């Protein structure tokens, strides 16, 4: 059995400080949604609210058609995986996994059988009698995963489950987590501050900032069509340029910065462009050229750094400091006068805020 | 609430009784501060207070100095020796104050080991009376508190990262220079905490001044007991108690604030 989760206009406080404001979120049946954001933005708090370790000031949390909001934490039936594993240090691996079954009053023979089966699925049946202290980090996290899965919860939640593991293991484990979640078809809410991890593992990702969800979308949409400056900057659109449309010519739009820098964009590639807009570009989205006839923003190049696949330039323009990548074939010296031309593949159009 | 039983116990059996003791001293019909002026008008009682300060201060300073140097040596010892030395400091610490004060009764008595020894080497002809002097009380208090200082300061010294000492010697500082310029400043907050422990415990001690000072070297603790249980003057005893509370609370508050201010590792 697996159920959709819906969080409805939750506000939460620690003491008198507000940490979540009017947060709404749904996770469809069998879907994996990630909460992604910098440390302190309220991801853990959201999980703790759903798990029942914290009471919301207002709002409601539902799992299927069951209202969880006033249910005590031990009655919520949610599988939780913690960053620091949170294994019971005094219980064997097998008893850790069997713990939830014991609370559900299963006979001990049945408990052991299911615990061992689940340990087998995560490849740790041979360590069943060890104590958690004797396991490596990756093994510990597998036990934690088995412990959460064995109770067959309708909802699984993960709080930065991989951040204590080394880089290689992180990649392996996230694939494993995704496969187990898919195989069981369990609804899952996954917290991470690692963008690559979130994008690779999730059906949809919620980007959070200061206790709010800034955008909830598929990784592809977030990456290509951020909805606002925060998300744009978060996914690597480092340049945010305020522009005003001066003329429209079919699908071609001519626009200008406040100090007169000119840019031409095609609505075919970027969608409808409003009269006032923000052009968001990644460093690769600004082509550095010394071709005087190109339409673009005039810039003076500052410091150059070598990225391996390109050179990166700090560019001084009338619209502020911008970052652009230039090809290795034609390096420019610091102080060169150039033109920055947007490359629509690495650009997005935002509403001014 | 889970902390309610402890809160209640402390309120009912500590705060209220102690507050009652103190309030008695302000409830004399003759006037608000009469018990205090009586206390300070008496030369004998002033002497008791002053002696208590003096004894506690000397015991504290000596314990701190020897405790620090010993702790420094112990913390630099190889592990097995360190364990042995820690055990040898814990043992007296866990042995009661009465037993440890009593030891000095045997040592300093008329037929005690020290008199016997001095007579045997011919330094003296007849036994000296060393008991019931200020020195005997101070020596016993130092004896009692040095192990505490050693253990507190080993903890403090071990909290100083080895990196700092290595950095110091790599910059050319001799062990002595490292001790005075790196170790000591970092240990100051811990030293203050330890010193406060020793001072307050000495200031309020009873068994040691009772056994080794007797009625000749009355200190605040023994004086409080004498007022209450021999003279049955409970107002006077309460006054002594109130003065002790004021001295201790002030010392602790001032010194912990100082320790916090002098802590270079605090952010």
């Amino acid at each position, binding site marked *: 059995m697996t159920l959709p989760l819906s969080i409805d206009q939750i506000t939460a406080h620690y003491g008198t400080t507000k940490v979540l404001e009017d947060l709404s979120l749904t996770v469809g049946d069998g879907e994996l949604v990630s909460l992604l954001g910098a440390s302190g933005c309220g991801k853990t708090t959201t999980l703790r609210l759903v798990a029942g370790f914290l009471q919301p000031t207002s709002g409601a949390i539902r799992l299927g058609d069951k209202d969880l909001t006033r249910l005590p934490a031990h009655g919520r039936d949610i599988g939780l995986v913690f960053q620091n594993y949170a294994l019971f240090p005094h219980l064997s691996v097998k008893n850790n996994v069997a713990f939830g079954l014991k609370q559900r009053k299963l006979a001990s023979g049945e408990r052991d059988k299911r615990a061992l089966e689940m340990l087998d699925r995560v490849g740790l049946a041979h360590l069943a009698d060890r104590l958690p202290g004797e396991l490596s980090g990756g093994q510990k996290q597998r036990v934690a995963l088995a412990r959460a899965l064995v109770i067959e919860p309708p909802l699984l939640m993960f709080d930065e489950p991989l951040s204590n593991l080394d880089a290689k293991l992180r990649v392996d484990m996230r694939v494993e987590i995704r496969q187990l979640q898919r195989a069981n078809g369990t609804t899952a809410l996954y917290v991470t501050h690692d963008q690559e991890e979130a994008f690779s593992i999730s059906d949809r990702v919620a980007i959070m900032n200061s206790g709010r969800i800034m955008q909830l979308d598929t990784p592809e949409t977030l990456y290509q069509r951020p909805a606002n400056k925060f998300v744009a900057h978060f996914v690597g659109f480092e340049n945010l340029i305020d522009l005003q449309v001066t003329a429209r010519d079919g699908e071609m739009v001519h626009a200008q910065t406040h100090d007169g820098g000119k840019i031409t964009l095609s609505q075919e590639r970027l969608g409808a462009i409003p009269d006032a807009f923000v052009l968001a570009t990644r460093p690769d989205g600004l082509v550095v050229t010394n071709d005087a006839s190109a339409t673009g923003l005039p810039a003076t190049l500052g410091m150059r750094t070598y990225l391996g696949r390109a050179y990166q330039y700090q560019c001084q323009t009338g619209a502020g400091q911008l970052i652009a990548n230039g090809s290795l074939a034609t390096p420019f010296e610091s102080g060169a006068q150039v033109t920055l031309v947007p490359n629509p593949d690495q650009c997005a159009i935002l509403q001014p805020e | 609430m889970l*902390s309610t*039983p402890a809160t209640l116990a402390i309120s009912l*059996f500590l705060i209220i009784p102690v507050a009652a003791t103190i309030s008695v001293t302000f409830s004399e019909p003759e006037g608000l501060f009469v018990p205090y002026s009586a206390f300070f008008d008496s030369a004998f009682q002033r002497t008791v207070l002053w002696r208590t300060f003096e004894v506690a201060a000397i015991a504290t300073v000596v314990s701190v100095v020897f405790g620090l140097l010993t702790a420094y040596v112990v913390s630099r010892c190889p592990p097995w020796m360190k364990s042995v030395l820690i055990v040898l400091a814990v043992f007296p610490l866990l042995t009661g104050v009465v037993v440890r004060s009593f030891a000095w009764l*045997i040592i300093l008595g008329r037929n005690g080991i020290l008199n016997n020894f001095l007579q045997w080497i011919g330094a003296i002809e007849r036994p000296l009376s060393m008991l019931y002097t200020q020195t005997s009380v101070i020596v016993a208090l130092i*004896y009692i508190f040095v192990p505490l200082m050693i253990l507190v300061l080993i903890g403090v010294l071990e909290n100083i990262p*080895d990196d700092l000492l290595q950095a110091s010697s790599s910059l050319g500082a001799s062990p002595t220079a*490292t001790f005075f310029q790196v170790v000591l400043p970092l240990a100051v907050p811990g030293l203050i905490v330890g010193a406060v422990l020793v001072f307050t415990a000495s*200031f309020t001690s009873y068994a040691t001044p009772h056994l080794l000072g007797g009625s000749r070297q009355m200190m605040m*603790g023994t004086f409080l*007991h004498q007022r209450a249980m021999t003279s049955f003057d409970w107002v006077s005893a309460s006054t002594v108690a109130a003065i002790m509370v004021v001295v201790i609370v002030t010392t602790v508050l001032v010194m912990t604030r100082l320790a916090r201010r002098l802590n270079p590792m605090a952010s």
Partner: protein
Amino acid sequence: MATRIHPLLILMTIVVYIFLIGPLIIIFGASVSDTTFLAFPPQGLTLHWFENIWEISAFRRTIVTSFQVALLGTAMALLIGIPAAYALNRHRIQLPGWLSTLFVLPILIPEIVIGFSLLRSINVGLGVPVFFALLIGHTLLVLPYVIRVISASLASFDFSIEEAAISLGSRPVKTFFTIVLPNVRSGILAAFILAFITSINDVSVSLFLTGPGISTLPIQILAHVEQFFDPTIASVSVLLMMLTIIVMIIVERTLGLTAVTK
């Protein structure tokens, strides 16, 4: 780090340790001396003074009382101290700041003042029997140690372990007993031992809380010394030191003795 230590410092350390241990050896010597006054070195050897402890009924009685008070007082302090320490660590933000200050008050107030005040208010004022006043005094005496030691143990306890158990369906109260307590066992043991030793050796709180037929061993020792200057006290002291040694062996076996400097 192996820095050289100045020879004078090493010499001083040796002297300090002779100063620390010597007097305790002297007590041992005095306890087996066959003179009727306290003498060291002993002239002849005897165990008479150890037998004498059992012949003096006041010692027999006070030894029993001391153990009763130390065990009961420590048990009561654990009973109220463990929940308090748990609350302090688990719900620190929700609790008012003065609470942790309140819990260290018994350390701040001189023990002798606590004893005297309990005599005035509880024993004389309310007519509470001496034994219970003594028990209350000792509970207060050891409560701060209990709270501090168990707090230190809880400070390194990862409360997400508790949350994991609850999320798996274990009720909070049951979780406390099956998950939290087993993981702070060593803290509780340390608190118990420290409290027991403090209570058994206490003079200042007990001083005023004794009455006809009820006294503790340290108070009885003080009373005995006033009247007799014989080696009985030395042999009682040796017994107390043996108790200390037993406790240290227990600590070493369970916690490791170097834990004391932590």
